[in-house]
């Protein structure tokens, strides 16, 4: 049962990711991204990480995506201004090279992956996550706040009209 669910959800995630990359229309792309984020959230659920799944839906699929769509609609993207890439043909190489990577990974999976260490049993509740964040992962947690601050400062600096 879980196996079948995984296959379906994963196929959906991959398909939506492909759609995101391949569609020229930005709005369509954004909508594909919503589907992608949602299916990843579903994957989290099947792994028993309810909290992560909820956060994924609320923060990413909800808030961030709305911002994305707004931004796309407000800023109408202009034409490319840089001219043609002289090595444009090379881009087609991406397909075989990507396929090679996929093949490698497939071969590895086929050859059988060694024992996967059992992940630390984390009941996916808010409390458990909070407990971990404030004890074991205190440093990364605080570090994230610094990272966000730096990101904010940077964005403000780049976005400011003065200069």
């Amino acid at each position, binding site marked *: 049962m879980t196996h079948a669910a995984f296959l379906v959800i994963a196929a959906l995630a991959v398909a939506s990711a492909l759609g995101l990359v391949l569609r020229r229309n930005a709005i369509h792309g954004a909508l594909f991204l919503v589907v992608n984020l949602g299916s990843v959230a579903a994957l989290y659920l099947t792994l028993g990480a309810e909290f992560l799944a909820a956060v994924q839906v609320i923060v990413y699929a909800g808030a961030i995506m709305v911002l994305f769509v707004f931004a796309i609609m407000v800023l109408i993207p202009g034409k490319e201004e840089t001219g043609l890439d002289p090595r444009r043909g090379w881009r087609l190489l991406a397909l075989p090279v990507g396929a090679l990577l996929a093949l490698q990974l497939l071969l590895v999976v086929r050859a059988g992956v060694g024992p996967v260490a059992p992940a630390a049993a984390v009941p996916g509740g808010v409390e458990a996550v909070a407990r971990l964040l404030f004890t074991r992962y205190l440093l*990364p947690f605080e570090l994230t706040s610094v990272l966000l601050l730096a990101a904010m400062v940077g964005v403000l600096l*780049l976005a400011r009209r003065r200069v």
Partner: protein
Amino acid sequence: MTPLAMPPVAIGPLAPVLIVLGAAGLVLLLDLLPRPVGRELIATVALAGLVGALLATLARWGKPGRAFQDMLVLDDFALFANVVICYAAALVVMLSIDYLGRNGPETGEYYALVLFSTGGMMLLAAAGDLIVLFLALELMSLSLYVLAGLFKRELAASEASMKYFILGAFATSFLLYGIALIYGATGTTNLDRIAAAAAGRAHDPLLVIGLGLLLVGFGFKISSVPFHMWAPDVYQGAPTSVTALIATGSKAAALAALIRVLVTALRGSQPDWAVLLWVVAAITMTVGNVVAIAQSNLKRLLAYSSIAHVGYMLIGVVAGGSAGPGAVLFYLLTYAFTTAGAFGVLTLCERAQAEAVEVGDYAGLARRHPVLAAALGLFLLSLVGIPPLAGFVGKFYLFAAAVRAGYLWLAVIGVVNSALAAYYYLRVVVFMYMREPEGAGARLVPSFAGGLALAIALIGIVLLGVIPAPFADLAQAAVAPLLR
């Protein structure tokens, strides 16, 4: 609900980083004051933070500390790397003061971001856990992405910033995937516990792919071939002071973290990564040096030169043992002084309303500004590796480590490359001393702080070249904690 048992928080090992980040906060606050304060004051605060961090780092020498459940390992290795990083960042701040005033926006955020980035570098070198490593790497990189695009009115700067950001994110995704796979294989992100769990499982595919993807992510940060292509564009487009930080600090931090991960967590896979990095080192130095020959833009030239130097340093990583990483640490120190100095000279030069970045701009510099030309000449000679300057001694230790570890051919390739490199460095010297400029060449823009930074860098390369032994001994000793 059971009460939360807060673990003991040891601030001590975190102190140097906290000083830097605190200074960053202070800089941001100063920038918010209703009446704008002078940029000198802001720069001074930033510099004071870095010097404070440097002192705090030096004060902890020989007193290793671990904190936050081994997520932070401030051993001598991290301390040595942090000294290099603090020095580099301090030089960059000193160089920035007048350079920014001339070319760019007068903002406090610049210094805040430099400090954030520096904090990230210091944490990166001290990370004992892959999660902290990743976050530190992001803190460092994110700040650098923004700094690279600081000169928004210049198209090249925006383009550089964007490229750096997109490709950086691309590389980081590989790194993150690698971390996830290693976690999957070993069930932990702690470096020591990974080593324990991975013992005897060197050929576990998960682990092998994890290793490969980690090397990809680090390869981008240190700009080794084939993940180097961003470097010339970014080095050229970014403000020169930021370029200096990217070339010195970020490289030092990433190399230190790479060595720590390889030598502690993945020591079981050494036969694998050593051979792979052997090839990468050989190709990196060759490509860097060969392409540098064709460059006419000094910043691009130095970008390729820095790629080549990463190739040299990877020789030390390949050589392993205690001699190899020790030689890399020492090289990082010499390289930080030399490269910061070379870029520093560029920040002090300008030509009619623009930066002087073409080699041709420096024609006849020796006649117009003999001291400046001599300084740049010395930095370039140190990059070539002419005794008794620091660059020679650094290369000597690297190649000696390789030879003693049995990598004779790698050392030979390194020596051949050094000879090749002399061509393009000396070409600049020839321009400065033997050519007359076409039109008005570069001229010096006096700057007290910048001059002081150059003086410090010069003293550094001469001192490290003439009496290298004590510093090299420290670098060797600093590697010991990794090899337990």
